[in-house]
């Protein structure tokens, strides 16, 4: 573990190179930053922690963090339990389907398909049915999914425990599940976020891993709930029990062969075992073999979800009758025959303590917090802390976000926002009231990152090259314009105090005011010039219409009240309709609105 060497004279050059901006750097700040082995200036450090430990700065956050000090802010955010959260708590209570158990959700919000079948049957038999009521109920059936999406956005926008929320986002993505894999998944999502991920987001990795392994969401998503000992393998349970179970299975299958997958098409399913090794712990090059995958899958046979038909909640259930009772050998360790649920627990112990896991998790956290290609020395140090503290996530994160590498010039503004981060940061910067409808979540989906909508188990990308492409940039620019035009109720600038404050001011002051709020005051001379006067500094045509710029230099812009009909949310709109309608017939932006639209659509706002 060698100390990271810092280039002493990089800070000034780095700052100039990266943002081409000069700031009134105070000598004392510079000295303090250098004393702490940090390349970033004091101001940059404030912006940096706000862009990495939170989903984006709100109005006043810069001043707050500068006053309390960057290190005090980090220390505070690492102890979320001690931060009061008065705004979010009552808002979450309004989201009925976010707060219920899977069984309560299934009772209160039956699957839409089930209701549609009822409707179809009733219509066919000619019976009088209240089809309106059934349709309404079917629409309600989407709430378990909609409410958890809304809750995710709402918390990210409004919680004071921002670092915890960033880590909830990180772990939900690391242990990604797909919300519409089947009709049951929607009932598991809220519980997964509330009880599995959140309590462990800054806890011990082994606890998190165990909570995920026994969660209905993961057991369902990666099929372990139906993984059973292969035919011919010994299972646990008494012979009589096994015979009864076999007979019952045959009966069910005779009555409804379509249940073959659920009712016990006996056999090993390797899906969870493979992803557990490849994506959750060791990493693809973490040193395991195909035989390890099979052995791990055998260890987890019988780990399933209590079926809804049985009384009680959808809890974890170990079914010994489906557990492969033979001996297994995982990563060189022998699990002796005939043990049961301890097999899987021991596999999780082995994996959580494995050096490959320490490196894999440390690297991924460094990618989230530092840069797409984090320095190897930092990853090594963070991995060592992971090992030394037996997987204490808080300590690993602390190591990363207090490191010289975190505060290096290279890391500054080096990350590109995901669509979730983009939309949430816009909502936070504009100071919009938290959206209690699913519309903000739908906008995030339209930008390419639906909450719980990643089909593949690898989760959403953490790096820029996967998020930035032709279509993505177009959508992001249109998003900025639509927000400025007041088309998105969840992210409206209308309630933004700064709009009133800046109204009637000269345009260059307005530009600086907007840049301060949205870009942390960091704006390149070129960008500032374009926002101020709209002149294209490049000769030649552009992709746009050849209309003359509407705003002249030095013109005093005015900001009237937004048109009353600008926002007309339709709660029934899907993500597609949302995108289409939000962007239809956008008026030419005037004055302050225009500055906000340009700033939100600018390359600078895509970064954090």
């Amino acid at each position, binding site marked *: 573990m060698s100390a990271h060497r810092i280039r002493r004279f990089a800070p000034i050059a780095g700052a100039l190179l*990266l943002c081409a901006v000069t700031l009134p750097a105070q000598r004392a700040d510079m000295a303090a930053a250098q004393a702490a082995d940090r390349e970033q200036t004091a101001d940059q450090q404030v912006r940096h922690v706000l862009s990495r430990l939170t989903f984006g700065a709100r109005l006043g956050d810069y001043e707050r963090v500068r006053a309390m000090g960057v290190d005090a802010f980090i220390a505070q955010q690492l102890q979320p339990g001690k931060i009061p959260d008065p705004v979010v708590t009552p808002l979450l209570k309004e989201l009925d389907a976010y707060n219920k158990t899977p069984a309560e959700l299934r009772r209160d919000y039956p699957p839409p*398909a089930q209701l*549609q*079948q009822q409707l179809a*049957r009733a219509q*066919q038999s000619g019976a009088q049915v209240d089809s309106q009521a059934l349709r309404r109920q079917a629409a309600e059936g989407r709430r378990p999914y909609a409410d958890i999406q809304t809750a995710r956005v709402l918390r990210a926008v409004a919680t004071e425990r921002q670092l915890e929320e960033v880590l909830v986002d990180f772990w939900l993505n690391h242990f990604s599940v797909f919300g519409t*894999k*089947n009709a049951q998944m929607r009932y598991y999502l809220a519980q997964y976020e509330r009880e599995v991920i959140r309590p462990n987001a800054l806890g011990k990795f082994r606890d998190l891993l165990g909570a995920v392994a026994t969660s209905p969401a993961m057991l369902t998503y990666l099929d372990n709930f139906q993984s059973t000992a292969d035919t011919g393998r010994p299972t646990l349970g008494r012979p009589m029990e096994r015979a009864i179970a076999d007979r019952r299975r045959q009966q069910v299958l005779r009555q409804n*062969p*379509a249940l*073959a*997958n659920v009712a016990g098409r006996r056999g090993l399913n390797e*899906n969870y075992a*493979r992803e557990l090794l490849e994506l959750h712990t060791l990493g*693809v090059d973490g040193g395991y073999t195909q035989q390890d995958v099979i052995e791990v899958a055998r260890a987890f046979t019988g780990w399933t979800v209590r079926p809804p038909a049985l009384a009680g909640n959808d809890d974890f259930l170990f079914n010994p009758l489906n557990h492969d009772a033979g001996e297994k050998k995982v990563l060189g360790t022998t699990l002796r025959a005939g043990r049961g649920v301890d097999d899987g627990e021991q596999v999780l112990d082995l994996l959580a303590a494995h050096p490959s896991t320490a490196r894999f998790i440390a690297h991924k956290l460094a990618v989230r917090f530092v840069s797409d290609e984090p320095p190897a020395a930092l990853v090594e140090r963070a991995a060592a802390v992971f090992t030394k503290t037996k997987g204490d996530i808080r300590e690993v994160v602390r190591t990363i976000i207090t490191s010289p590498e975190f505060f290096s010039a290279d890391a500054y503004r080096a990350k590109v926002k995901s669509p979730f981060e983009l939309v949430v940061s816009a909502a936070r910067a504009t100071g919009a009231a938290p959206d209690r409808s699913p519309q903000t979540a739908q906008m995030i989906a339209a930008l*390419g990152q639906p909450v719980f909508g990643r*089909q*593949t*188990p*690898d989760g959403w990308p953490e790096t*820029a*090259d996967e998020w*930035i*492409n*032709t*279509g*993505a*940039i*177009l959508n992001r*620019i*249109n998003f900025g*314009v*639509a927000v400025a035009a007041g088309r998105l109720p969840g992210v409206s600038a209308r309630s933004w105090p700064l709009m009133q404050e800046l109204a009637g001011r000269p345009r260059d002051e307005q530009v600086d005011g907007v840049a301060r709020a949205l870009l942390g005051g960091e704006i*390149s001379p070129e*960008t500032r010039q*374009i*926002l101020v006067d*709209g*002149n*294209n*500094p*490049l000769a030649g045509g*552009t*992709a*746009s*219409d050849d*209309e003359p*710029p*509407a*705003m002249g230099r030095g013109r005093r812009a005015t900001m009237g009240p937004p048109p009353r009909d600008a926002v007309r949310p339709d709660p029934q709109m899907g993500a597609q309709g949302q995108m*289409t309608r939000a*962007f239809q017939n*956008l*008026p*030419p*932006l005037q004055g302050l609105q225009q500055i906000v639209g*340009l700033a939100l659509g*600018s*390359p600078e706002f*895509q970064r954090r």
Partner: protein
Amino acid sequence: MQRRIFLKQGAFALVTMGLNPSFLRRTVLDLELPAAAKGKVLICLFQRGAADALNVVVPFGDRDYYALRPRIGIAAPSRGAVGSTAIDLDGFFGLHPSLAPLHTLYRDGILAPIHAVGSPSATRSHFDAQDYMESGTPDNKGTRDGWLNRYLATHGTCESGCTPTPFRAVSMTQQTPRILQGPQETVAMNSLEEFSVRAAGSDAQRLESLYRTGRADLVHGSGTEMFEAVKMLKAANPQQYRVANGAQYPNSQFGTRLRQIAQLIKANVGLEVAFADIGGWDTHVNQGGATGQLANRLGDFAQSIAALTQDLGDRMDDVVILTMSEFGRMARENGSAGTDHGHAGSMFVIGGKVQGGRVLGRWPGLAREQLFEGRDLALTTDFRSVFSEVAQTHLGLRDSAALFPGFTPSPLGVL
């Protein structure tokens, strides 16, 4: 991926020195890929939800068919009952009556149905099966990219040279589908109208300026490319191309999207791979027979495809349309006059050079012992064989190993 970033940064670095980026980018690519494109186009259409192959291409000659489907079976062809019975193809198979528009293509010899085709995976999960059909790697969930994106990486028709445009691969969908995901650039759009900067002229100009100045990085580079793509589409103005040859697209989302794919082809924007999907095939309940739920879906599906082929006219010599669905449905109808998830399904291959007018694939039979796991149509053709053949024969791909690692295709002779 490295190359992509390099190009963006390289092109952009010179922009700030006053050079035109489109000129520059083309020069860079021209060095790599000197000659002209062949203009071949592949259009992939995905029926999401598992279409009931046995009622799409009806095996009326198989005596077990009607025993399995007493309520929803499609009656054998009969001269007096056009529209309510199967349309005879070869004395054994017939098309669902809603597919009459496709029968014309079959008679013209440019449409070939393939039966008992699909994924060898035994999964009956929509999610997994779509994943496998789009990644092209059945039973392997670790594949990160889609097989069409892997095709783009091999250059295909560009192998002997051409200039890839931003519109080389276009998906008419909200998001990039799994089949096109990967490191190669693709464009996903809801509609042609939506692929534009939604800002008034001067605002759009300013936004473009923001991306043309400043750092030479991925964000600026992609932004610059995007403004160029928008400009290119605007100049090509695909919407100016009217529907030709009296084709009539249904007024559905699917019909509209196929019409816009035709417009992109006519506008010569360099389209090589197009994708669209259509849902509503998961017919567990009251699926209907010659009329009803499935018949309505098939009507939209067939009319849209027939309009596309008619609209494109002679251009169909350079076009292949490939339809697919994640799996077929159970051979026996269920208790709700519908069908549950099954195994093998059917596909259509349509194009001017397709050796059509015959049903391809070995028919495995519907007797109990012939069915997969005693319940579903068995598989005799791996979907990768069809995809490989189209990529090689139509698009000129030399070696399909890059598309489907470890798979040895058995060509059907469809092209």
